């Protein structure tokens, strides 16, 4: 009934009013993001900055993953490979070349992930659906074994004590507060790129491919090229998140490359809401908070069981995710 009502309403309204309402919605959105930004600016005064930085890195990771799953409909089970590649390359470069600016280290890690994403993408988009997931998982496992054996990764120990260095030779990143604002800036840039991608004509085509691939092909879109670009953007931003994480923790290890990590980012996205803009951020916040809370408590050894249970619950009962659910409530009541 209510749906009918809304439809008629918009039919009757003159275009001027519709435009005004859209602009009002845009304004509300702007204020909302500004408020979030304000909270992010003062957050390190109240919360441990390292924790916040971890949260931002994983939120960016989940957002990049969501670009692929939520907007292109591609389930990658191998995103840990990009996260770890960014981390290892950045960690190695910053450790080996002590004069190197941190921004260059992160840039190199990000580019390495982009290149790996191109390779993965070229192979994986040759198959669809479930095969796509299995191929990305197998490729990520291949990368994992390479990192186990490669001479520059430090094997089981990983790269420890990576120097944080200086940003543009001006800011000393060993100061947690300086580093926090840098990580926040990195997150905002990554988030903005994803937003821009989603709302561009290209993003619309991606959604069309997700909804009906044969139709998109028949409309003349080069579906494989579009998917590949989405995969590379996602891998690049995942690499950016991994590189930044290495700078924050001064550590790159095999944990980043393990398939558990690929599973975790899926969980964050699913829990927050697949295909929603803020879902991955919320999902990452919940999962990271839960993990750090559990690891300090008596339930520390049950982390995987609890994450698995959340997984099962989400799939069975809560497929829209937290943000999807809130949006649904908002639509119904306002």
């Amino acid at each position, binding site marked *: 009934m209510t749906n009918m009502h809304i439809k008629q309403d918009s039919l009757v309204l003159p275009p001027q009013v519709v435009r005004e309402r859209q602009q009002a919605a845009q304004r509300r959105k702007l204020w909302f993001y500004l408020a979030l930004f304000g909270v992010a600016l003062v957050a390190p005064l109240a919360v441990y900055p390292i924790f916040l930085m971890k949260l931002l890195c994983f939120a960016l990771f989940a957002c990049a993953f969501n670009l692929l799953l939520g907007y292109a409909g591609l389930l990658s089970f191998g995103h840990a490979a990009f996260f770890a590649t960014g981390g290892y390359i950045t960690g190695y470069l910053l450790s080996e070349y002590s004069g190197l600016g941190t921004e260059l280290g992160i840039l190199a890690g990000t580019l390495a992930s982009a290149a790996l994403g191109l390779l993965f993408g070229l192979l994986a988009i040759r198959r669809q659906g479930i095969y796509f997931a299995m191929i990305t998982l197998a490729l990520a496992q291949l990368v994992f074994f390479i990192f186990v054996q490669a001479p520059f990764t430090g094997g089981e120990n990983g790269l420890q004590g990576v120097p944080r260095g200086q940003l543009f030779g001006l800011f000393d990143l060993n100061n947690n507060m300086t580093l926090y604002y840098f990580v926040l800036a990195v997150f905002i840039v990554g988030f903005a790129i994803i937003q821009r991608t989603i709302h561009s004509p290209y993003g619309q085509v991606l959604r069309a491919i997700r909804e009906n691939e044969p139709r998109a092909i028949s409309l003349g879109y080069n579906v494989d090229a579009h998917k590949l670009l989405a995969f590379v953007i996602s891998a690049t931003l995942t690499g950016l998140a991994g590189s930044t994480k290495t700078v924050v923790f001064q550590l790159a290890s095999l944990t980043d490359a393990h398939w558990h990590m690929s599973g975790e980012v899926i969980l964050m996205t699913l829990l927050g809401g697949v295909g929603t803009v803020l879902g991955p951020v919320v999902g990452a916040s919940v999962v990271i908070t839960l993990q750090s809370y559990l690891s300090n408590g008596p339930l520390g050894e049950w982390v995987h*069981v609890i994450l698995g249970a959340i997984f*099962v619950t989400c799939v069975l009962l809560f497929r829209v995710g937290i943000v999807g659910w809130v949006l649904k409530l908002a639509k119904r009541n306002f």
Partner: protein
Amino acid sequence: MTMVFGIPLGVLLGQLLLGLINGAFYALLSLGLAIIFGLLRIINFAHGAQYMLGAFAAVLGLKYLGINYWVALIVAPLLVGALGMLIERGLLRRIAGEDHLYGLLLTFGLALIVEGCFVKLFGVSGASYPMPELLKGGYNLGFMFLPTYRAWVVVAAVVVCVLTWYMIERTRLGSYLRAGTENPKLMQAFGINVPLLITLTYGYGAALAGLAGVLAAPIYSVTPTMGANLLIVVFAVVVIGGMGSIMGAIVTGLAMGVIEGLTKVIYPEAANTIVFLVMVLVLLVRPAGLFGKET
């Protein structure tokens, strides 16, 4: 001693045999995955956990109930299969109409739960299982030593695979299964109980994984994560073979095991990765898989 590629023949054959054993497990597991995928259209991520459950059922049965290997070989797959049927009825059925990716995610969550519980209960190092008396020792073939148990694993796995193939391709029940794979709605209209068929299929696939677990218990260390890492290799095997044919799954599994064994002799550094590299090659040359149908 005869040399092949500068490697003693005995060493080469020994590694080939080890590879064939790994291949037997790949074949059993990818067969189960292929059967489940055929009818349910989901990838069973819990397959590795079910394999691990089979192995642990054997270990715990011996420890607490005194069940010997031969009984475990029957009972453990039945238990794992029954658990599988419960999972299908209680959980997978609820998301049958949704995107198939949800099936993958649901079974992934289940695998995390089961493995997490076992890590908590038994630790990561796990347990060991004694070799059954009858299968101890081995034969000296002159050019190499053939341990009885390893020969048994290969023979048992091949027999089970061939029986499964026969059941699916040559019996009435199998024809229902194949028809259900093609068009479940029409089957239902013809009065075949498709939901029951789906439950049985998932149960059978899980039971195959459980059986593989029991077979693996005496030769591999029984740990909570033994299935998870194996499963990813099996996924690659499935991509290589394509899930279109039952025989394809069996042959690809065995072949990948042998290739892995050979790699261990020729270039040990790549032994962990060779199956994935073959997968890359197959994707480049024949994306649908060696036995898959072009879609």
